[in-house]
């Protein structure tokens, strides 16, 4: 019985890996209503309902340990100058029957609870609801307007309106005389961002807190003014329930909520949220980090890279990454379609690895970009690697010629090569980030004898190399075609 159970467990794990399911954050990614993720002194922090939060060294493996006072619900964080401002709410949400609530803001010099500079100060109430008015003051979130430096805070939930107030970025306190503006209805967990002349209001719709039956989903509207009106892609105002879908349930992850922007620069944007239930993890509420794409001026959830067998194609030239080996022709008897030929129509067999591998060198083999011909020397298995860490949203991957252990590696002279066997070395581990246009940036974890952040780049039409990432150029962009 024990053997059968163990075999079954192994079979399930194998199925999950081979079927290319979305990978879950590692460690203890259990949190509800996560704040925007903050980078502080080289570590990532996120805070959740009830107090506390998670810390990660790399954005992939998370553990408990973040601290904040106050309890309450749905905090958010922003870094301005030398301060980390934190907001959270207490009292409302329909919990304990009421909608009377206060929104608090406080600040600390660091988020590291082990630092002597850690300690929240100047807690102040910036917004309230009296339990009867058309608002329940919870789920607060910051926006620092990059155009003018003004600081805003949205808040509210399914009881009445989402409201917007202005804070002083020097102190975190409510601006004197500021009146709240109603900007949406019947949603919660709002967040705001700015891009290219538009203000975006992200909001969570649907039902929270019902495990795998939660219908929670993240939607968005936009406005030319921070105070609205916010409308969706169909022109439906968020004050009338509008919102274009950004993220929802997929695979084993149910109930997306509480959007937080994680801008990593250079055209790499991600967002954090929680899923109400990860069906692989006892249906617990988990932190998720996914790519953020932009399509026609609207944010859309991307997907973290999934393992599989791929063509790796340069956006610059359209040519595919391949080994520098002799092209082996497929045997084929030419057949003229114009002549009468009663020979039966039959398939031509694809070339397989066994047909060509004996002709390949045994040691390192260089790579180039070539016409993709669906040949073995052009197909790559991309597989997550355990126990080597990762980056926000994903583990590191190895990139090997399909069916072999021959692995793509960075070299000390800033080039790329394949080595006969994968060894876990950092230069053989690859970070694959989806860019905002849906293409990818491919980056080694490390380049031998260098600290420069270099990425896989096409120089000319057919030469891959490592170089600094240029977000304005297709040289550094790649696409993956499943094989």
């Amino acid at each position: 019985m024990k053997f059968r159970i163990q075999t079954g467990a192994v079979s399930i794990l194998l199925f999950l890996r081979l079927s290319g399911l979305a990978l879950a954050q590692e460690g203890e990614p259990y949190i509800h209503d996560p704040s925007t993720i903050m980078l502080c002194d080289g570590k990532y922090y996120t805070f959740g309902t009830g107090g506390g939060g998670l810390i990660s060294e790399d954005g992939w493996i998370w553990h408990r340990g973040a601290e904040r006072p106050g309890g309450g619900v749905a905090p958010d964080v922003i870094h301005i100058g030398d301060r980390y401002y934190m907001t959270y709410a207490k009292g409302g949400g329909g919990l304990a029957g009421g909608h009377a609530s206060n929104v608090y803001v406080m600040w600390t010099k660091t988020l590291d609870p082990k630092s002597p500079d850690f300690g929240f100060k100047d807690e102040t109430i910036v917004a309230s609801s009296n339990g009867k008015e058309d608002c329940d003051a919870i789920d607060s979130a910051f926006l620092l307007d990059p155009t003018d430096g003004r600081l805003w805070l949205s808040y509210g939930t399914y009881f009445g309106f989402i409201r917007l107030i202005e804070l002083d970025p020097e102190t975190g306190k409510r601006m004197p005389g500021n009146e709240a503006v109603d900007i949406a209805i019947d949603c919660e967990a709002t967040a705001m961002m700015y891009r290219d002349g538009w203000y975006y209001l992200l909001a969570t719709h649907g039902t929270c807190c019902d495990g795998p039956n939660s219908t929670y989903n993240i939607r968005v509207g936009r406005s030319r003014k921070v105070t609205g009106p916010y409308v969706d892609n169909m022109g439906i105002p968020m004050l009338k329930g509008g919102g274009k879908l950004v993220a929802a349930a997929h695979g084993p992850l149910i109930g997306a909520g509480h959007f937080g922007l994680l801008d990593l620069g250079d055209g790499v944007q991600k967002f954090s949220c929680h899923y109400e239930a990860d069906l692989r993890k006892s249906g617990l509420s988990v932190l998720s980090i996914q790519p953020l794409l932009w399509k026609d001026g609207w944010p859309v959830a991307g997907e973290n890279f999934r393992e599989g067998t791929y063509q790796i194609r340069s956006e610059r030239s359209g040519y595919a990454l391949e080994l520098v080996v002799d092209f082996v022709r497929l045997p084929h008897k030419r057949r003229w379609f114009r002549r009468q030929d009663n020979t039966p129509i039959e398939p031509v067999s694809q070339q397989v690895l066994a047909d060509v591998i004996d002709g390949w060198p045994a040691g390192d083999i260089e790579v180039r970009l070539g016409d993709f011909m669906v040949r073995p020397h052009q197909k790559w298995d991309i597989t997550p690697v355990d126990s080597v860490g990762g980056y926000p949203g994903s583990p590191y991957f190895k990139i090997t010629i399909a069916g072999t252990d021959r692995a793509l590696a960075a070299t000390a002279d800033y080039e790329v090569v394949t080595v006969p066997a994968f060894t876990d070395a950092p230069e053989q581990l690859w970070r694959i980030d989806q860019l905002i246009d849906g293409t990818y940036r491919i980056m080694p974890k490390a380049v031998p004898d260098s600290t420069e952040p270099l990425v896989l780049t096409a120089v000319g039409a057919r030469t891959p190399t490592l170089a600094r990432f240029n977000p304005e150029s297709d040289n550094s962009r790649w696409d993956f075609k499943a094989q």
Partner: protein
Amino acid sequence: MKLFRNILMPVLCLLVLMFQNGYTASDGTVESTATSDAGISLAPYFTPATSSPKVPDTEGFIQRWLLLEPINKPNRTNTVFTDSYLRDAFYTGYFPDQFTTVPSNGDKVMVAEQELQWHALDATGFNVKLFRFASGLNKQKYGVLFWAVTVVNSPREMKNIRMAVGSNSGSMWWLNGNEAVLLTGDRRMVMDDFVSKRLTLKKGRNIIRGAVINGPGMSDFCVRFIDENGDPIRDLTISFEK
């Protein structure tokens, strides 16, 4: 006996009146809903409907309705609002002529132990905030089922129009006695959330009837008609004159 009749009985009755509309919220607290004329206020969400016909607002939303005070329908959660549950709830008979009546302002019906009154009101916004209707009348706000009726007068026959509805939470809507649209699941206010199949408005008088159910949420609905292009139909009048 005299003590009981003169003192204890009235006290007991008062206590019953104080708690007869009480609703036990999900945390077990009981909300006091003592009826008091001094506490009745539907502003700024509603004004009394007048005898003058009303037209839909600039986006076609119908704001004039006869609303029945909420029927007690306890539900701790809206997750039960499957299609089957809603059909059963909405086709249950709660009061006489439920599916045919066009009541007048002030008419009363008995629903089990509850005496409920119809109110002719104009919503001030695009949506009819039933939660504020109930709370303004010091009635129960949660665990409720509302009925709504209105009469839409059309200058001509209009074919291929659709009824577009948003509601919090589940609801069902009829046009001239025929089921038009069901809003299923735990819904919240989204304009044009569910839209009916193609319908015909008769020349003259058309009756819209709706039922909205909610457990712990903020009950609400909005209704308008849209044409084949999705544009609102505004050349209608709403009047309860018989």
